[in-house]
């Protein structure tokens, strides 16, 4: 008997059966136990206001941007002198098609990602409840730029902000199985492992800046 059989046999023994109940039986028991709508935070503000309020509470920053053509100049203004350091971006059509002057066009070759000072990516969704950015992996959304650089800039369409995390799963699962990884990011990296003192920039980006794009 291998470990798989041994463990599953023991589990079934402890549950008093020799065969696992069907998925349907399990789901029926679950819906008898819990309501469809979970207890969640509620707010009076608009969805976008809640999103920006929570993002700021998590030490993230943001700015509104009227149209995508304005993205490079907004980034140049936010970066200031740091704009002269190596820039990288996700190979996302919203970014690759832009005229990047006054900056040098950001690199997309991930082999150089460790040298990027700033990475620019495109959010799939925002979550108003927590001020989070959702970045599912895929050809136009590699994972590395979300974590390696010192600064992370995310372009997010205002229309892609949803109230709660659950809506993100509905949207993603409608397109098939989940992507390899879904990063839900709320503010910059932090640690409190030295004497419970909050310090930003532990291993991931030290700053997270969101550009909210009007639809």
């Amino acid at each position, binding site marked *: 008997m291998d470990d798989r059989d041994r463990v599953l046999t023991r589990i079934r023994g402890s549950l008093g*059966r020799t065969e696992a109940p069907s998925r349907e039986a399990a789901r029926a028991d679950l819906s008898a136990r819990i309501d469809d709508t979970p207890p969640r935070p509620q707010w009076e503000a608009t969805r976008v206001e809640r999103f920006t309020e929570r993002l700021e509470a998590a030490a993230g920053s943001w700015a509104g941007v009227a149209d995508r053509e304005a993205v490079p100049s907004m980034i140049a203004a936010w970066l200031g002198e740091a704009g002269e350091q190596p820039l990288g971006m996700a190979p996302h059509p919203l970014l690759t098609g832009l005229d990047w002057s006054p900056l040098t066009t950001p690199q997309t070759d991930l082999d150089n990602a460790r040298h990027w000072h700033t990475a620019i990516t495109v959010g799939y969704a925002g979550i108003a409840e927590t001020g989070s950015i959702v970045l599912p992996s895929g050809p136009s959304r590699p994972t590395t730029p979300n974590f390696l650089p010192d600064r992370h800039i995310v372009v997010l369409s205002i229309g892609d902000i949803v109230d709660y995390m659950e809506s993100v799963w509905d949207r993603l699962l409608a397109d098939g199985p989940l992507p390899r990884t879904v990063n839900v990011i709320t503010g910059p990296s932090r640690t409190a492992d030295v004497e419970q003192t909050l310090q930003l920039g532990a291993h991931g980006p030290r700053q997270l800046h969101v550009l909210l794009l009007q639809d």
Partner: protein
Amino acid sequence: MAVSEADFRARARKALDDDNLQAALAQAKGGFVDKRADAILDLPAFEQLRERGRQIKDHTLEYLDTYLDEFEQNLNSAGGQLHYAADAESAREAVLRICREAHARQIIKAKTMAGEEVGLNEALEAEFETVESDLGEYIIQLAKEPPSHIIAPAVHKTRGEITELFDTHHHGRSGGPLRETPDLVNEARGVLREKFLGADIGISGANFLVADTGTITLVTNEGNADLSTSLPRVHIAIAGVEKLVPSMQEASSMLRLLARSATGQQITAYTTFITGARREDELDGPEELHVVLIDNGRSRMLGNDYREMLRCIRCGACMNHCPVYSAIGGHAYGWVYPGPMGAVLTPMFRGLDKSSDLPQACTLNGRCQTVCPVKIRLPHLIRQLRDDAFEQQITPATTRWGIRGWAWLARRPRLYTAVTGLAQRLMSRLGRGSVRRAPLAGAWTAGRDLPLPGRGGTFQQQWQARQRSGQDG
């Protein structure tokens, strides 16, 4: 990390006398408690959410075999591989085998309590360069110590001690000036950055496993788990079989409970959902994903009186709110799980005969149960373990005979009244106030004085008098 569960008393005594430890515990005290209290203000329905959490976990445990099958199928279709491990040795073997087959040299680890439970680090370090990436875990790895808290492993270390460790290990010097927190964090960032980039294998735990998508959920604030699981070519996740939840919907509810209960956040900075290995059209991500599911005593708990302990989501709220933990810290508990949850889990996983002092080190004040996000009746389980220890004759013979004697007396009301009345009269003649030493109660009076009873009679006599005069309200 091999630490024995025996000698709890000696370790507790040592912890109370350790000035550095007491300073660190004082620093941490209240922080977690206040942050949790603030965080649940945004969610007035938090009590309903706790009940939902309890139901989700109870349900999943009742259908664990169904969900394990479902998880395995979905993990496989996403390109991941599942490995079961019946015990700690088998778990270490499974991980080592994957590392050897991948011709690994360097391993980067994100924090995993399941890994600590099976002694993974010692096994890996014998063959591979193995580095912990969570800052707290990295600090205690340098100090060669086990974690003292399940979410803040280095909570017992002062900044002075961390300065000393970094000076020694990074610069080969000692006796330097005390360094500031940003300086220490930046230095670790720089050192560990190279380790992330050089590693062939990343090892993580899992906060939840989602059955109907085959997904691993990981929460961190540092981003270390994300770098550990996305840069190396192989990712191994190790987790207990009880980590399953039915779907992403339930995972979302559980995450609301976990972040608030653990660190007092509404959500951690990084909440990551991993489903399988790198897809064909992707530019990065690991080529292989292995999930090692450990039993190690859990299937036994599923069938005994301690099943509800399997609801535990490892948030640490119980220890943050425990007066005993706050006084002695985590190491005194002798194994990887400290505090109230450890007082139940250590006897379960390591045997009650080796850890019978742990359920005794509890005031039964019940705060742990009040804050537990999945409503585990920790005081009830701890009391049950005391009963078990008595039944199994693990409790020392003198204590057992003492309890038996008292029980014999308590079942004979007339005799009980006579004996306690006599004792009360004798003691009240000793004088007023209190005495510093009393026979048979040396341990009790070592730390406090014994107040002498007044002349008003025994408790029962006074109670009856109050009842008669209507002063009971």
